[in-house]
Structures are given as structure tokens and as C-alpha cells.
């Protein structure tokens, strides 16, 4: 397994190199520079020149790239131009929030999606099926930010059941160990903090989950339907096995294969949704941070983010393959 990881990462290196070059050129093509972003209203030409001088933005692009690469080789992603803090710290600061959010969404998607899809398929054509299918279709068609808006004004503002945004209620006792609010609470025994963090996760989680959930439901349903028509299910039936055995061992287990892949793909796309959800719930994660970085022309942050994304992407695929291997012996062998 470790060997697999290593191999994947090795394969990644040439791609990453090409990618970073491309992106370096691309983002430096963004009009305007970080200088104005820093100065805002009170900026003036002189100040701009001064800053760009200092940032070395006046040098040729390849020199700048060389410098960036050199630092990268020393495991240094550089500092954010906007906040002046090391990019790596900025990430580790915001990454946990996004991961928590993403995981919550995934949990919703999987825990609700798979059973729903399964039963929808089993009772094909029943009201359950119809609602599940149409529901998932609608789920895909509702713009995430609109959903977020609705959820917030209903559950946070009007009903007041859940917090309207943020990660933790201000002033609650929470010791920051890992940056994962929920986990921290459990580690430090501040369970109320964990609970609080969970409450803050529900609404954004739901908003973010809408699309993955819909997708999972539909894939599961389709896949179960397909498996139901497989010969080996017929065989199992012909052996007179109990329903539970046929469904669990023979239907569900096979039906899960495509679902796993889909979940992997969805996970990748979660970040997009996170950009919207995080800003809608002022949930200080990486999504909104990067979105800001783009308009701030915060080159180091953007470059770092690309590397980061590439790695996350590879890791997700890796996880998918591993899980896949666990379920499907055919893959395991090859």
C-alpha cells in the first residue's frame, strides 16, 4: 500500500512540474497585480512601484518561477502577499474547516444516499422510488447558494434551531489542537464544544451535500437495478437463500462498486461547492480563501493551492482505488 502511494506520487511529479509552469504563467497573466489589492483606495502609483519592486514582480517571469521553485524544493511555499503569513500556515489554518465541511457533506450523501437509492431500486416505481428520483433531480437543479440562503433564513433566522454561520459559538471553551473543531472537542474532552461545532456544521453540510446526495442516490439506484438483473443474483435465488443474504451479500456488495467511484469523483467536486457554501455561511474554509486569493492576485497562495489540490486529488483517487480493491477482488489481483 505504501509502495502504491509512493508510486502514485512519483508519477505525479512530472505532471506537477508542467502544471505549475502553466499555472505560473496563467495566474501572472491575471490583469492588475497584488499591489493594488494591498493598497486599496489609499494606493498610488509610487506605492505600487515600491511594492512590485519588493515582491520582485518587475523581474522576468522565468526568474520569478525559478525563485518559487527553489523555495519549493526547500519545502517552502512562500508567504501570502495579502496576509503576509506563510502559505502553508494559511492552509493548515483553513484546511481543517473545509475538510470538516466536506466530510459532513459526504456523510450526509452516503448515509442518506445509499439506503435511499437502494430501496428506491428495490421498490422500483413505488412512491418511494418516485420521490427519491425526482427529489435527487431537483437537488441537482437547485443552485447551492440559493439553497444555502433558504436553509439559513429558515432554520437559523426564523426557527432559530441552528447557528447561522461560523464554526463555533463565540466564547465557548474550545482548545485548538488539530484545527478540526469537532475532533478537538473529543480529544480535549470538551464535548460541548464538539457538539457546538457539529451544530455549526449541519446547515452548510446540508447545502453542500445537496448535489453529492442526489448523485449518490441516482448512481446507487441505477447500479442496484443493474445488479438485480445479473445472473449471479438469479443463482443465489435458485439456491433458495434468505432474502437478507441475497440482498446483502449478492446485490448490495456488487452494487456498491460504481458508488464508491462516484463518491470519489464527488469528493473532488466538493471544493467547488465549498466556495459557495463557505461564503454563504461565513465558514472560514479554504474555498472562500482561495476565491479571495484569486481576486487579490495572491500568487504564492494560488500556486501553493494548485500543488495542494493536485495532491488531494491523487490521494482521493488512491483512497477510491484502495476501497475498490477491498470490495472487488478482481481489481485486487491485477
Amino acid at each position, binding site marked *: 500500500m505504501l509502495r502504491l502511494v509512493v508510486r502514485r506520487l512519483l508519477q505525479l511529479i512530472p505532471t506537477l512540474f508542467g502544471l505549475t509552469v502553466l499555472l505560473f504563467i496563467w495566474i501572472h497573466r491575471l490583469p492588475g497585480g497584488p499591489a493594488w489589492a494591498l493598497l486599496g483606495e489609499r494606493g498610488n502609483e509610487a506605492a505600487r512601484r515600491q511594492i512590485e519592486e519588493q515582491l520582485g514582480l518587475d523581474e522576468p517571469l522565468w526568474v520569478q518561477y525559478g525563485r518559487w521553485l527553489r523555495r519549493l524544493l526547500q519545502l517552502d511555499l512562500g508567504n501570502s502577499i495579502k496576509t503576509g503569513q506563510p502559505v502553508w500556515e494559511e492552509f493548515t489554518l483553513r484546511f481543517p474547516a473545509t475538510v470538516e465541511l466536506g466530510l459532513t457533506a459526504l456523510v450526509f450523501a452516503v448515509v442518506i444516499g445509499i439506503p435511499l437509492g437502494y430501496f428506491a431500486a428495490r421498490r*422500483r*416505481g413505488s412512491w418511494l422510488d418516485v420521490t427519491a428520483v425526482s427529489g435527487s433531480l431537483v437537488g441537482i437543479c437547485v443552485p447551492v447558494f440559493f439553497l444555502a440562503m433558504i436553509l439559513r433564513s429558515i432554520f437559523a433566522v426564523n426557527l432559530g434551531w441552528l447557528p447561522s454561520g461560523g464554526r463555533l459559538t463565540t466564547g465557548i471553551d474550545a482548545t485548538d489542537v488539530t484545527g478540526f473543531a469537532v475532533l478537538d472537542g473529543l480529544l480535549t474532552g470538551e464535548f460541548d464544544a464538539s457538539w457546538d461545532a457539529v451544530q455549526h456544521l449541519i446547515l452548510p453540510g446540508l447545502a453542500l451535500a445537496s448535489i453529492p446526495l442526489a448523485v449518490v442516490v441516482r448512481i446507487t439506484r441505477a447500479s442496484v437495478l443493474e445488479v438485480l438483473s*445479473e*445472473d*449471479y443474483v*438469479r*443463482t*443465489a*435465488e*435458485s*439456491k*433458495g*437463500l*434468505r*432474502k437478507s*443474504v441475497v440482498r446483502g*451479500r*449478492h446485490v448490495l*456488495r*456488487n452494487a456498491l*462498486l460504481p458508488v464508491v467511484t462516484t463518491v470519489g469523483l464527488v469528493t473532488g467536486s466538493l471544493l467547488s461547492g465549498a466556495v459557495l457554501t463557505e461564503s454563504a455561511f461565513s465558514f472560514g474554509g479554504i474555498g472562500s480563501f482561495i476565491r479571495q486569493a484569486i481576486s487579490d492576485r495572491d500568487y504564492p497562495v494560488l500556486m501553493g493551492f494548485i500543488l495542494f489540490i493536485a495532491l488531494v486529488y491523487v490521494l482521493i483517487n488512491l483512497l477510491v482505488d484502495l476501497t475498490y480493491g477491498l*470490495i*472487488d*477482488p*478482481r481489481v485486487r*489481483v491485477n
Partner: protein
Amino acid sequence: MPLLSVDELKVTFAGHGRRATTAVSGVSFDVDEGQVVGLVGESGCGKSVTSLALMGLLPAKGVRVEGRADYRGTDLLSLSPSRLRDLRGTQLAMIFQDPLSSLNPVVPIGVQVTEILSRHRGLRGQAARDEAATLLDRVGIPDPRRRLKEYPHQLSGGMRQRALIAMAVACAPRLLIADEPTTALDVTIQAQILELLKELVDQQGTALLMITHDLGVVAGLCDEVNVLYAGKVVESADRRTLFAEPAHPYAHGLLNSIPRLDAPRGQPLNPVRGSINDQIAWADGCAFAPRCDFYTLDCLQGTPELGPLNADAVAGHQVRCVNPVREPLAVTTLAEVGAGGDPPAEAAAPKGAPKTAPKAAPKEETSE
């Protein structure tokens, strides 16, 4: 009284939004204890549907099953799903056409065998595994202990089919339905599998309903033969009679179409012309008419009845035809195909498959 007697079995598919199509339009036949009955016909004639109907494996929705199928006095077709579950595997078992797709790819062979043991024979854990191993051994799978842990895709075609058979016979069922068990296999292995089947049936006194399009198989195995055409039995007789004097033009054609090894070179083959697609509804007359050499307008006077050929006909020789074929086939052919009680491929598979299987096994591996 027969073990299983099927009476006017009728299966109609009414897919959503599509016009109903009749796959089996009134099939009747009997299977006695320990008897081997063949259900012969070209693909699409409704053989498989018949078997699935008997096992109650047809989808609940969009399918209408009529008629009776008395198994030891109980009508299988009207049994409750749960009762049927209890029968399946213990009383009735089935072997399917394509062994690869019929085995669950993600579950080890062992589990797939033991699950039936634990279901019907209450065997658990080690006991179940031991029994499974002996089963695999009985069906001639070498090194069963290791195989138990393996997955279908790691086995050769023959092995898989043997595994399927092992599951089918695990609880010594009274009736075993084999649906084209050999079509997906190499010729050499076909023979071994058939041999194995025959042996198991003899040992357990299990009745076997052999569904096939391969007359060779019929000749090698069956006592009684029912020829199916377009969802109806067109002729039924004991093997010898059928091979000696096929009365229905279709059966006649089928037998005639078997290429002969001793035929002089250059002599044309004589297949049944046309295809299953150009047929007419039984209601309008004989479905075979369009392909029939002996077709007259009388053939179109409603559905012909299944009845004794004529007074001096062999007992139980029934045919569904207005003007059956009179002249028997050239006797030599019969000698070859029918007369011998053993399969043509006998030579390929020496007696006592289990003992010899280990020898055979490597051969199979290479055949993958």
C-alpha cells in the same frame, strides 16, 4: 405418478408500454423420479423461460405465468415465495448457462458454496467448509481447500461450472434443472461436465431436466425428449423413437441438419431453412409453417393439437402436426447419434470423472 408434471405452462411478458409477447404458450411434459428429460429447441423457443418459470425465478413484475406445474402434488406456480425459497436448493436446484456470470464475482467460491449448506443443512463454520470441500472434490475440483478461498475469476470455465454444479447438488435435490450447462464451455470440457452430471444424477437418483439445443447432449443423456418450437412442445418421445422416426418436420429437420462425419466430401449440409423469427402466431396455425417443407393451407387452420402420431405409434410418441413426416431417417445416422446410450464424446472423458478429474484439471487451466 410423475415427480413433476407441467401442464399448459404459459408465460407472457407484458413490459411497460410494450405489447405483450408470449414466450411460452402452453407447454406440457412430465418428469419421473430419477428420469432425465430433455427440452430441446433452438434459442428463443422458450426453453429457458420454462425452466425459470418452474423455479419461480421470473421477475414478479411484467410477467404472467399460467398453467400448473405439479411437483409431488404441490403446484409450484402457486406457491408462496417463502415456501418456494425452502424448496429451492433442497428439492429443486438449477445449473445455469454461463458459469462466469452466474457466480458472484466479489464473493469467494467457498462462501458461495457454504451459504447454501448453512441455509438448508444448518452447517456452520468449519463443518460447512469441510462439507464444501468434499462437495468440490466430488465434482472433480482439484485442491478444493485452496479453491474455497479463491474467487470466480481465478477459476477456469470448467471449474466454475463444476462449482455451480457442486452448489446445485449440495442438498441432493430431487429435481435438477440444467439450462444449457455446457454451451459456454470447450467441447472437451463439455463432455466431462455431462459425464459428471450423469454420474451425480445416477448416484443421488435425482431427476434431471436437461435444457439444450444440442442434440448430441440429448442423445448422450436423455430418456425422454420434448422438442420445443415457438413456445410449444411440437414433439415428444423417448430418445430412441425420436431419433429413429422424428415425425414433426421441425424435429426431422433438426436431426437431418446434424453434419455427418462419414458424409462424402462436397455433399451439401441440409439445415432447417429460415430462422425462428419468421414464424406465425400459434393461434393462426402452425408456427413452423413458414419454414416447413411440407406446409399446406391446412397448417393454417388454427393451432394443431399435440397427439399420438397414429394408432401403431410407439407409446408416448406425440406430435403436433397436421401432416407429419412419414419416412424415417437413414438408419446409419441413428446408429451414430441415437443408438449408443453413451455420449459421442465418451472417449474424451473416461469413466469416473472424479478420479480422473485431477488429471483433467490442468488441461482445463490451459484452456483458459
